[in-house]
């Protein structure tokens, strides 16, 4: 069970159900009068063994939330736990080890080290840690993702979809407590995107992993068990067992709702953070000006930056 747990008492995660938890998580950029709140006292629990999507318009703070939960970014106030470990206040070295050993990452693009082949990329976090990968698990992951034939290929020899599958395999390989995927389909065509989402789904259902995915694509969010909607640095809604249509509807409503919402609540700090406040979304721009069109566009899977070739085609052969 996963929820925007505003009503729960802050404290340690209880039992086995919670993979990560945040209480009063606040992230401000800048200081004083010009401070912009990217996250405004967010309380959230990420349920173990489920696929959670975080949605929201550009600048809503969804990537910041992910970065803070993953120990990539520092928080301005509040606490974050990964399992039983409070990660707020950890030193860089401890955070680095935590990311290495307990979290898996998938980014929108530039997920792989170009000098390493697929197999080396997959085992990289464990290699860095000096641990031996669990070969049985690794084989299962590789076979699940259909990468057996591609292991000796360098990233440049793989298509965009294949690259994301390798990234997915890397995230899964060390059997982390939590996998964060930041717009994993953002750079893929719809077919490759669907494939990757299928694998993330499979990771949760078949392999029992916990996945948190940041996206602004309702179609992608529809693959999750639970969608958390973020706006202006707060969790404003959630949706269990979402469908693409429902999410899209919610997003549409949500945009007009935001106006009334803002008017009604009088959010401190005013409007949404600037684009710059959320670096991974900087290029997406156009905050709030044409949300519907933007959602439509991404819903159809044409994000503009289409990766060359489909999932099965190896087109770039440089060596």
């Amino acid at each position: 069970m996963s929820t925007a747990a505003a009503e729960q008492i802050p404290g340690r995660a209880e039992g086995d159900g919670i993979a990560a938890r945040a209480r009063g998580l606040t992230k401000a950029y800048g200081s004083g009068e010009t401070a912009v709140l990217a996250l405004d006292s967010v309380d959230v629990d990420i349920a173990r063994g489920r696929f959670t999507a975080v949605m929201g318009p550009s600048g809503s703070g969804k990537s910041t939330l992910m970065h803070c939960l993953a120990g990539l970014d520092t928080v301005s106030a509040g606490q974050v736990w990964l399992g039983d470990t409070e990660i707020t206040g950890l030193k860089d070295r401890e955070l680095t080890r935590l990311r290495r050993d307990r979290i898996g990452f998938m980014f929108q693009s530039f997920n792989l080290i170009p000098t390493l082949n697929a197999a080396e990329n997959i085992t990289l976090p464990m290699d860095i840690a000096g641990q031996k990968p669990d070969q049985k698990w690794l084989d299962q992951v590789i076979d699940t993702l259909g990468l057996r034939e591609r292991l000796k290929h360098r990233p440049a020899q793989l298509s965009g979809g294949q690259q994301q599958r390798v990234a997915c395999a890397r995230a899964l390989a060390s059997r982390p407590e939590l996998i964060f995927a930041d717009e994993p389909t953002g750079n893929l065509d719809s077919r490759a995107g669907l494939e990757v989402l299928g694998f993330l789904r499979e990771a949760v259902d078949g392999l029992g992993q916990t996945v948190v995915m940041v996206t602004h694509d309702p179609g992608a969010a529809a693959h999750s068990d639970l969608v958390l909607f973020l706006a202006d640095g707060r969790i404003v809604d959630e949706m269990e067992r979402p469908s693409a249509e429902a999410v899209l509807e919610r997003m549409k409503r949500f945009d007009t709702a935001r106006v009334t919402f803002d008017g009604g609540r009088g959010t401190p700090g005013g409007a949404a953070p600037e684009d710059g406040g959320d670096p991974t979304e900087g290029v997406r721009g156009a905050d709030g000006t044409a949300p519907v069109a933007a959602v439509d566009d991404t819903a159809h899977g044409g994000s503009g930056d289409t990766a060359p070739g489909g999932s099965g085609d190896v087109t770039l052969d440089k060596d």
Partner: protein
Amino acid sequence: MLKATLRSFLAHKGRLLLSALAIVLSVAFVAGSLIFSDTVTRTFDRLFASTAADVTVEPKNDLKSQLPTGATETVPASLADRLAKVDGVAATHVDASVENAPVVDSANKSVGPTTGAPTIVTNWELTERSPVKLTSGHEPHGGDEALLDADTADKKHLGIGDTLTVQAQPGSFRVRIVGIATFTTTNPGAALVFLDTPTAQTKLLGRPGLATSISVDAAKGVGDARLKQRVQAELGTGAYEVKTAEEQAKSSAESLGGFLDVIKYVMLGFAGIAVLVGIFLIVNTFSMLIAQRTRELGLLRALGADRRQVRRSVLTEALLLGLVGSTLGLAAGIGLAVGLIKLMTAFGMNLKSTEMVIGWGTPVAAYVVGVGVTYVAAYLPARRAAAVSPMAALSDAEVAGVGRPLRVRAVVGGVVGAAGAAALAGCAASTKTSTAASLLGLGVVLTLIATVIAGPLLVRPVIRVLGGAFPALFGPVGRMSQRNALRNPRRTGATAAALMVGLALVGGMSVASASMSKSFDQQIDKTLGADFVLQNANFVPFSHEVTEKVRATEGVGLVVRQRFTPVAVKLPDGKRMETTAAAYDPKLDDVAHITYARGDTAAALGEGRIAMDVKFADDHDVRVGSTIPVEFPAGRTTELTVGALTDQGGGGFGTQGGLVFGFGTIEKYVPGGQDSALYVNAAPGTSPEKLRPRLEKTLEPYPQVQVRDQADYKKLVHDQIAVLLYLVYALLGLAIVIAVLGVVNTLALSVVERTREIGLLRAIGLGRRQLRRMIRLESVVIAVFGAVLGLALGIVWGVCVQQVLALQGMKALAVPWTTIVAVVIGSAVVGIVAALLPALRASRMNVLAAIAHE
């Protein structure tokens, strides 16, 4: 377009900094050496011009000596009176001045400068041209009074009342310091001792009535040139050399010039290295800047800028960089010159940095070098920039140039390399020194060019081997650093090339010098049979009373004297050759092992006989029995018959032709010469170990003469060769500094390029220390690659140099492996040092910002 260029220049100023530093260094060395030599030349020109007499009459000397003979040529002092009567002469002065008389204080310590500048003992005759004035005490009168110059008195803590011993050629004598003379002009670094004129004549030159030269003052209104004509008319042509003040100053400046030239060439050597290595740095920086700006350049092209404009934009940037670098370099060069002048002052040469001369040539040279080098170095990258297609603006290519094939380089490098290898092979096979030397030069240049061109091709195979153990040793960090070094072979190759050039030079020189040392060792073992060699530093001869006292020392058996003289020989093939000949006492065989092709020592050193190297003889149609006309200094001539031909494997005594004759000949034709070396054997019944302390005791009053046995003699030779090596190491130091700048540059730019990759690595759990280690290892592998390539090339060069030296008799080959291994290890350290800043920068990167980096 100019605006865009300026913007770009300013935007990249951080990245251009290191290139600018390389330019600054090379320009500084060029400017510094020019300013320094201009200043010194001007200072001494003034000194010589102000101290030269209107007309000087000297003994004629056509033969320039390569080695000091110790003989002092004289003119009759009576010429002064004769010339005083010549029309237009206001006054004449007798000069009695020698530079070959060491002066020691009462503790037998030399008062002469330790820098190689002469100790001049001369007669005190104060004229308006004297460079000194009496500042305390009184003028010297009589045989036991002397003045000392103030600088020397200061340095050696001497004053009025102290005694000095002057070891003049006719014999040592003691004098008391009665006054101190202070330089009114620049002190060129010499020590000066003044005696009254009769004392100087008798005790320095052997008898009254002699002079080393006559100074003639012109009467009012008589020009130097006219006076010279009149003096010449009076004296007739032949025995005397008559010079005007201008000519005298010029020849003085020339004799000093040799020393200054050395400094100048050393400085220019540094400038050359700085320029050479700097070029690599600049090429690399511009290449990388352009690779990074491919999209921007593509956009410019898409917006309508044509190729020429793009090229010009890059070249303008280079021009600006060159101008800035040259200006800073010029300033640094002035600083360097001030430093050198200070250094010279510490050596006793009183130059004033306030009188520094910056001729117009200096800024011109500075800007030509600085701007020219930058422009040339940026030309290729500029062409590449112009070739960027407008499509580049649209594509998402990572870095241009990574995947471009190296085929052209392979072909050009292969061809040039083959030509270079052929030249080196030809050099090794050649039997003529001149051919071998020119083939060597050609081969060195060609192989260097080939290695620079083909460097990127060697990156993959060599670094695969060098970094092969990295994955096993350092895990994924090692694997990534090795692959990063392989990532852009062009860049790795160019970066390593800077280090390679310097180390190739060092490798070659160290092999050559080690081979020379070994050859000399072998030769000393083979030829030196004496128990001891008594010698001055730098072959400067010593007074013959040393010889007498050594002979009189208890336990001394045989003493064989060695003396040198300049000679000119007329050879049967019609050539006249000026060289230096050596003379020995007859029992040479007891102190040296000489191999003769024809004849023996008795035939070589007999009266009226001469011997020479067999190869030289063959080259000039000389046979045993040939009669050779020989000219000695001061116009003495004779004919000598070839009695023997030596075969020392070309080694001989280091003089051309290896001319040798008996001691009687040199005493007859070069009277007043001094011995350059004594070969001493212990008397029967006395062991050399016992003799040594006795000899040392005998030589106590002559601190400049040293006793050396075979081992000492070898050490002396090694030390002399080591001086050459120190210079090479200094050059290496500079080359390394600049090469480090290059590695820093490359790594810094690579770190920027790989920002996202670094962000990703950090996100998935690479620690800061691991990241720093990754960059350090990459740096080490690049540096060691450069070192290995350079040393390999250098060893090949060194072996070829040895082949050339072998023709001169230095047949031993030695490769100093310890030095080579030390240099490789050193290069790894260089890599670590170079990686410090880039690694720190990478590890400080904000993970999120790095991931989001475009």
